[in-house]
């Protein structure tokens, strides 16, 4: 077999692995090693404990090598035997697994500074941390932080060296040489760079992640380009070989995946238990491709094209954050659409709206161009940021809170104005806290080292973690969630109370409180009021007004007295899957949503109101996306709509028009309702059916019954 065939074969094996892994399979070795390490170093300062603990685990873990590995980096996984299972359950009971409070302090949800690691190598980071430690000037906490960093980077380097020895022993001298090279110097080739990234990723995923690890590698097509081109020019590697390495990279990103779906489990099915057995078992791993760049000419970046060709629709990872620009090659766009209609995990983002939004943050141009999304669709600034807090939430709840205090409104505009002022109080308080933490004199070290800190630029120099002022761009999430339900509430109030005057505000508000039991007429009228997502001018105008009003508040409150932007708020509309639980605890709302029903998801309209995809896209594209940094927008299309060459043409036109009109994001699921229903009855016939959840893919069969029903209930856009 040549290398391309080996890679293809590896992809098939990885796909099979994801489908057939036993539900209770886990990294039992890692679980026990981590517990041993915790016991061994208990009592040490946390950063030291983390460094020593990681070194303990990484120097003892197995280093599986498959004869077909192009890139190394596996870990031991199995179904625990009886004794192991007993010990595992004991640890679970004693709360020593993912609730492990301190030892490996981590949480993922970050875009790693992979460009920095490729540039400096792990050795560069060791040197940098040592040099910073020697320079001193820190109190005990700060010194421990730096010592922890040195230990952690060194543990990673030693893991790479152990892998070199394992490869040598397994008869893979070239793979061994690659590992030795990257242990002592920055990667010099495309393959070395991918190898380094995978091993660093494994350290986080397989050994470091005590909580959860949702990571993004950043713009791999961009920062790997110089190495790729140098390899081709020197005749060291062909384009096909690069594709093969990337295939194997994708396989390695998928190894940790298990069966199940963590966001919508209800604890009643075995599929839901993976979360406790292995916190990363369905963690999506993102890469960014495409988009404007300060490093290269984005229009002719050959790696974007190569990686796009190597998207494998049946592999859940990596998830491709695909940044589109208006100058893109139409062929590349068509290729991506073709992959997307096969249900590849592609999340399309629009640079033309994202860049204005990121530039308005007052960050430098380089970092604006390196904007990113980490799972699930949360905005990020590659390698330079971390989340330190947030404000906002579901707008329907904000509205209900407002109505609990006040009911004397005479127009929708007045409600929006009052809502903005209520929102302002919250934003102002959060911004004040942010300024105190990040804009005053350098804070004292809190003596905590999070694994995220190890992968972010600036933290070594600052000797502080991200939340301790060590990141260049500490960020808040400004959350404006479940917009559709909020808009529909206002649209219904506007129509019933202020325009048609069929009831008073109090009557409608009271009717919501008793779930419309005594006023079915108002319920029916509310349901028939204009709805967001149907290309209705009245409802859409409310949506725009509401969003702008809330964003105005954020803009106003995030500048200081001198008019400088001094609080970084990444504004997002994403809901994750919380909209279900949040709705479950809520009274009926003024739009006719009944008590306990979900509120709206992401940018989607209220369930059941929409029937045409173009109407939906037109509505959504009216929102002021140039002021938002992320948002997820699920579009479910019938297979027939995108079948054949004509169907592909249609899909290209749908998406390109949506983005030209200013849409921010789109993610497709191509599946017929009938097909999803059939998959519930005959899972054996639908083993490859995947669907998009908040910002990743799930194998439909592996989802719990409730989660499946949730997907089926989403509107099919025809």
């Amino acid at each position: 077999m040549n290398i391309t065939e080996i890679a293809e074969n590896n992809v098939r094996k990885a796909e099979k692995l994801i489908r057939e892994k036993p539900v209770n399979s886990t990294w039992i070795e890692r679980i026990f090693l981590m517990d041993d390490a915790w016991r061994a170093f208990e009592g040490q300062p946390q950063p030291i404990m983390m460094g020593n603990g990681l070194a303990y685990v990484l120097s003892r873990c197995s280093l599986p090598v498959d004869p077909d590995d192009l890139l190394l980096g596996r870990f031991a996984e199995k179904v625990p035997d009886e004794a192991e299972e007993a010990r595992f359950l004991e640890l679970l009971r004693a709360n020593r697994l993912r609730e492990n409070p301190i030892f490996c302090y981590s949480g993922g949800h970050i875009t790693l500074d992979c460009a920095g690691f490729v540039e400096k190598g792990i050795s560069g980071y060791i040197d940098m941390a040592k040099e910073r430690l020697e320079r001193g000037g820190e109190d005990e906490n700060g010194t421990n932080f730096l010592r922890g960093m040195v230990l952690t980077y060194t543990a990673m380097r030693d893991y790479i060296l152990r892998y070199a020895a394992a490869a040598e022993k397994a008869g893979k001298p070239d793979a061994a040489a690659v590992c030795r090279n990257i242990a002592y110097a920055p990667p010099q080739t495309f393959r070395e760079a991918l190898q380094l990234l995978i091993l660093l990723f494994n350290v986080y995923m397989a050994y470091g992640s005590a909580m959860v690890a949702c990571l993004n590698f950043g713009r791999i097509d961009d920062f790997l380009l110089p190495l790729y081109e140098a390899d081709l020019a020197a005749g060291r590697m062909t384009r096909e070989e690069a594709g093969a390495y990337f295939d194997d990279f994708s396989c390695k990103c998928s190894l940790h995946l298990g069966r199940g779906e963590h966001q919508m489990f209800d604890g009643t099915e075995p599929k839901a238990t993976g979360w406790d057995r292995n916190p990363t078992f369905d963690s999506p791993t993102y890469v960014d491709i495409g988009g404007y760049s300060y490093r290269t000419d984005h229009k002719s970046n050959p790696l974007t094209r190569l990686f796009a060709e190597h998207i494998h629709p049946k592999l859940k990872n990596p998830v491709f954050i695909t940044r589109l620009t208006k100058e893109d090659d139409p062929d590349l766009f068509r290729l991506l659409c073709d992959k997307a209609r096969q249900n590849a995990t592609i999340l399309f983002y629009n640079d033309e709206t994202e860049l204005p939004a990121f530039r308005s943050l007052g960050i430098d141009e380089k970092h604006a161009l390196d904007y990113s999304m980490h799972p699930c669709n949360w905005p990020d600034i590659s390698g330079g940021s971390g989340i330190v807090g947030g404000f906002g939430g579901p707008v329907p709840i904000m509205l209900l809170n407002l109505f609990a205090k006040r009911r004397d409104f005479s127009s929708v505009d007045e409600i929006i104005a009052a809502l903005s002022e209520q929102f302002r109080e919250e934003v102002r308080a959060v911004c004040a806290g942010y300024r105190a933490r990040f804009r005053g004199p350098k804070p004292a070290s809190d003596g905590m080292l999070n694994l995220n800190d190890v992968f972010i630029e600036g933290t070594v120099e600052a000797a502080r973690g991200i939340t301790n002022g060590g990141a260049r761009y500490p960020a808040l999430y400004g959350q404006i969630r479940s917009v559709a339900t909020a808009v529909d509430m206002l649209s219904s109030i506007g129509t019933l109370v202020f325009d048609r005057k069929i009831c008073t505000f109090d009557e409608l508000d009271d009717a919501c409180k008793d779930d419309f039991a005594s006023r079915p007429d108002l319920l029916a009228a509310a349901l028939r009021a204009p709805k967001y997502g149907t290309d209705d001018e009245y409802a859409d105008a409310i949506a725009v007004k509401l969003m702008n009003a809330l964003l105005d508040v954020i803009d106003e409150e995030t500048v200081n007295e001198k008019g400088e932007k001094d609080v970084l708020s990444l504004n997002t509309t994403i809901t994750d899957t919380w909209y279900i639980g949040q709705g479950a605890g809520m009274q009926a709302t003024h739009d006719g949503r009944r008590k306990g029903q979900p509120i709206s998801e992401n940018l989607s309209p209220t369930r059941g109101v929409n029937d045409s995809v173009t109407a939906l896209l037109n509505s959504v594209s009216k929102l002021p996306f140039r002021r938002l940094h992320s948002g997820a927008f699920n579009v479910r299309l019938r297979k027939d709509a995108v079948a054949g060459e004509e169907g592909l043409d249609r899909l290209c036109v749908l998406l390109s028009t949506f983005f030209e009109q200013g849409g921010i994001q789109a993610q497709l699921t191509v599946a017929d309702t009938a097909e999803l229903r059939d998959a519930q009855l005959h899972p054996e016939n639908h083993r490859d059916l995947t669907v998009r959840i908040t910002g990743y893919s799930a194998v439909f069969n592996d989802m719990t019954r409730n989660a499946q029903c949730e997907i089926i209930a989403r509107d099919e856009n025809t």
Partner: protein
Amino acid sequence: MSEIKEAAGRITEIQRFSYHDGPGIRTTVFLKGCPLSCVWCHNPECRSFEAERGWLENRCARCGLCVSSCPAGALSLGERMTVDSDRCLSCGKCVSLCPNRAWKEYGREYAVSDLAKELKKDRAYFEKTGGGVTVSGGEPLSRAEFTRALLTKLKEDGIGTAVETSAFGREEDLLSLLPVTDHFMIDIKTTDDRLHRELTGVPVGPILHNIAALSAKGADILIRIPLIPEVNGNAENLTATAAFLREKTKIRRAELLRFHKLAAFKYDSLSLAYGALSFRTPTEEEMEAAAELLRANGIEAFYAKKEKTV
């Protein structure tokens, strides 16, 4: 002083992102009312010229509110909802009172300008795909004045147009649409008059005559043949259809449509009987055989392949 009233039409449904009713991405508007009564009709909600309401079983919570509120006592809810159409006053109360949106209203009145505004919303998609608006039915010729006014308005605004018709109507009405219609789509079920009356309730003569007249004027016409194996799928019928096209028209292409029973639920929802239950969906082989036969008779026949995955 006489008031100049804009033509108004009764619409069953506006379907955006439709791609089976002419080139490109289209918006199809279904007019209400059709003089034919094809046993297999896929749009039974478009047959009656009056407004109607369809009951959607999967949305109904069986609360009984509509039944008890109906001023005419026209509703009864057993295992299913039935509407006594003789009693119903078309007051719309059931639709507006249902807290679950379980009633769908067919037959909203639109003035031409309002409808045109609604139909133009997907202009961006039309322009990129050579699409536009398709007026379908129901039977557009039964509302020829309204159809002409609508198409004229759309043409003025630079929107591509198509008409889907049975061609059953007055010749001058059909010809009057020609200047404002880019494409015509016309069904021929059979050329046999006896069979045609049996299947549709009307003679075939005027239809064939109109198709010939329209073709003579140089219209772009796509002939469509809904294929139901046991009804019109025999060789005799297909050869006769081909012969008609060759001898009486300039049309040399035809699309075969695969009969299916997906519309059965609509009959249920309207308390109508579905007459096509015993008919069969043609197999891939039958589709191909029919296409071959037409081709052998000088007509370039095609049909949409059954889609597997993409």
